[in-house]
């Protein structure tokens, strides 16, 4: 039975990917608390501004299925006039969404009782720096932004406040984002040294992290895209869990986003995988910090600033494309798209390889999609929307269509890890059982120049990646360590993810590589992408507790009773 979630008690950023919900501009601020009482006053003053996940109405939303280049599953629901989130609509979409999180030391600094803190998970107590060896960050600790290198003692990061705002037609953030920034600075100043805004982001040591979606320009103006700086469309296939959406929306969104059952049908994941205090995929309510209302409806978040080496990526793809073009006898432009798609698992516009396994099929997919868009054929567009996420890998055990070691298939292997994957007995199939406990909600936005056509020019570019889950250890760290930085689960030895994995220059050892596998029964030979350079480098981050509105009040009022 699905219980209605108390959406107004859950912070908005957990359920909503702001970047794709009309908030393409963001600023992230980090604070340290030097006086517990003043820190609590700061939190209490901020509390009324925090955006919850309660359902809202956006009067400016465009026409479903036609408002974006590619149709989205959520628009399928909206096109039918069905509610996406449960509950009554009583809110208008805000201009700026504000959210807050705390590191372990932050909770300690704010006077959260020891009895509550002691039940926090190890990895959260450790913080991201201490987990560097697990995450594969140890080589990059010295090149992190100053704010993270200096995050100790008096400059320890305690509080994250994120502002996600709408944008003006000229691509600049709306004025309200600056107003909220000023209000935040004033609150900090009013603490009289009790709360300090930390600086040290990027080369110019800024006092906040500026973020923006990559913007595309057309005849009508600038439009936010779901691209990151490698020009790959991102943000498909986020997990869908029980209670997150209204019943009608859940029915559609769980297809490809939920969990795959024995009978190959889809179901939403257990709420407890993403929100504390609810039953999870192990069919129990996991232990959490007490009192339970402190943990319930909260979650954990990994904040990671990932620098993207755009020049190296483009050079590498060009180099491999030239080789692949010669090898496979295809034009270089097509080879560039093919190589990139094989590394990622999706074509550059997000069409999954499982839907369109060849360049030709991709062209056909897009031609049909363009025709449906031109004809405003909503029924057809609804079908297309589902094809972006609704697929399994059972038909492709060797990865001839979508390489098993591609970024997307590593991040969410769906049914690839089914122990009875190759069994002819359908009744023995286990669906995505081994993956259901390793899912993460992915949030965040790119930083750096937002012009889609801007060339690499030495400015820092990358993405602030936010991973939300109930257990950073079991979900985020596992995916990062075992599936991104290692390849044994995919029979790929110690090969790391071709896109975000570590590709260290090893003297005498094999350089980083990835095999573009072909059908063993066919004539085509496999192609080895080798000498993959380091494409993504971590620039720092930390683990945050994202409390419910109830817990935030308990923290701010200093009335947590753990007995």
């Amino acid at each position, binding site marked *: 039975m699905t*219980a209605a979630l108390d959406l107004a008690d859950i912070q908005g950023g957990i359920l909503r990917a702001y970047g794709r919900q009309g908030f393409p501009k963001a600023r992230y601020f980090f604070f340290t608390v030097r006086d517990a009482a003043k820190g609590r006053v700061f939190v209490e003053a901020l*509390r009324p501004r925090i955006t919850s996940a*309660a359902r809202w109405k956006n009067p400016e939303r465009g026409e479903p299925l036609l408002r974006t280049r590619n149709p989205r599953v959520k628009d399928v629901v909206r096109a039918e006039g069905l509610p996406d989130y449960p509950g*009554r609509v009583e809110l208008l979409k805000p201009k700026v969404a504000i959210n807050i999180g705390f590191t372990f030391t932050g909770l300690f600094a704010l006077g959260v009782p020891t009895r509550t803190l002691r039940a926090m998970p190890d990895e959260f107590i450790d913080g991201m720096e201490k987990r560097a060896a697990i995450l594969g960050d140890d080589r990059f600790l010295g090149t992190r932004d100053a704010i993270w290198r200096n995050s100790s003692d008096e400059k320890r990061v305690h509080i994250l406040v994120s502002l996600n705002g709408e944008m003006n037609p000229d691509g600049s953030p709306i004025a309200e984002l600056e107003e909220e920034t000023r209000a935040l600075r004033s609150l900090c100043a009013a603490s009289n040294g009790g709360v300090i805004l930390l600086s040290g982001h990027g080369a110019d040591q800024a006092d906040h992290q500026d973020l923006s979606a990559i913007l595309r320009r057309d005849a009508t103006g600038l439009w936010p895209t779901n691209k990151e700086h490698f020009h790959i469309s991102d943000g498909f296939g986020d997990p869908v869990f029980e209670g997150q959406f209204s019943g009608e929306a859940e029915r559609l969104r769980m297809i490809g986003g939920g969990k795959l059952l024995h009978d190959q049908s889809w179901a939403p994941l257990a709420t407890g995988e993403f929100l504390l205090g609810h039953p999870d995929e192990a069919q129990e*309510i996991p232990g959490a910090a007490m009192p339970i209302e402190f943990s319930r409806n909260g979650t954990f978040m990994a904040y990671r600033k990932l620098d993207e080496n755009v020049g190296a990526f483009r050079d590498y793809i060009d180099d491999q494309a030239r080789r692949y073009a010669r090898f496979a006898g295809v034009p270089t432009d097509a080879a560039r798209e093919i190589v990139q798609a094989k590394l990622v698992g999706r074509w550059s516009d997000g069409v999954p390889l499982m839907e369109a396994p060849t360049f030709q099929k991709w062209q056909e997919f897009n031609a049909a999609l363009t025709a449906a868009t031109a004809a405003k054929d909503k029924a057809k567009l609804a079908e297309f929307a589902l094809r972006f996420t609704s697929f399994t890998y059972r038909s492709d055990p060797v990865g001839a269509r979508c390489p098993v070691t591609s970024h997307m298939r590593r991040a969410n292997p769906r049914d690839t890890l089914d122990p009875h994957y190759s069994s002819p007995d359908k009744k023995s199939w286990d669906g995505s059982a081994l993956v259901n406990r390793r899912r993460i909600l992915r949030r965040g936005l790119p930083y750096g120049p937002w012009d889609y056509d801007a060339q690499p020019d030495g400015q820092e570019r990358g993405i602030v990646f936010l991973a939300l889950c109930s257990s950073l250890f079991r979900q985020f760290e596992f995916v990062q360590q075992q599936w991104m930085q290692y390849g044994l689960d995919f029979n790929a030895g110690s090969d790391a993810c071709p896109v975000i994995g570590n590709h260290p220059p090893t003297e005498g050892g094999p350089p980083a590589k990835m095999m573009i596998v072909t059908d063993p029964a066919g004539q085509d030979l496999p192609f080895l992408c080798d000498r993959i350079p380091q494409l993504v480098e971590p620039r720092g981050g930390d683990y945050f507790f994202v409390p419910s*509105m109830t817990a935030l009040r308990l923290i701010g009022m200093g009335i947590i009773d753990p007995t």
Partner: protein
Amino acid sequence: MPNIDAGHYFFSAIVPVCNEGTIEHPGVDGKPIRSSPIHMVREALETLPTALQSHATEAIGIASPFARSLRTHFARFVVLDQPFFNGRAYGDAIVGTIRGTDLLAAEPDDRLSCPYLLVMIDFDPRDGGKDEPRAYFEELWGLMEPELRAVFGYCYGFPGVSGATGFAEWLISCQLDTTMPFNDYWIDPPNLPSLSAAGLVAILAGFVAVPILAQLRYHFWHGPVLILLVLLALLVGVAADYLLVMGRGARPFPGNPRATLPHILKSLYLQRAFARFVTDQQDRDPATWGAAFRDFLKTHRPEDLTGPTQPPGVIR
């Protein structure tokens, strides 16, 4: 009637709290803030003053609003969000295998459709509880209406409540029978009528004896009929014993006539005053003790419940 026991009324209710939408209310900075209804209930409860039961609460100096009623012994609120799910029910592995139990398929777990507020209040009933708990809640409404509005304002049905009568009716509609009341204000065991085992056996024997004696005197029945009648009499005897025991058991435990809240407060006050008195007299001449005790009685007036006494809502 289990709600009244040992002379006290034990009120229990579960009140459903709205779980839809948001509530707009002023935040700390006066600007409007929107929260979920249960959030508002929690906030009202967390900021409701408790009894002055610790140094911290004594320093605040604001006692629980329930202390305004000299009939309230104890009041407790608990938010029931969801029943806590402890995982799959235990099942034998071999039996499960034979039955083909799919351990990956989650078992259904009970969920509440909305949060509930558990309300438990022990108070002194008037007139033997004839018009309770209605009279108590009507009185409470007059004593702490703003606090009651803050706590219950977002519960289903409450917004329609107007006045003391309406509040009492609404809360009583959420009442459950209290099945296990407890308090202990008896110093000596109360004089309870008891049933002796011998008495119960005698009742049983009495029923059985009737057909046997009748047979001995008049030779009415043949053997099998007599046996049947004896068995029937035995059953009637057992039933009579059962009804007797259950009837006595259903009677409320007698209340101590001196266990209303004013009595309890006075006795707590006297205990402390008398302990001080005894301590003071220890080193004094026993000849002065009588006069001192008369002074004690004059000062502390043990039979006067109106004072001096311990104020309600204070635990010392």
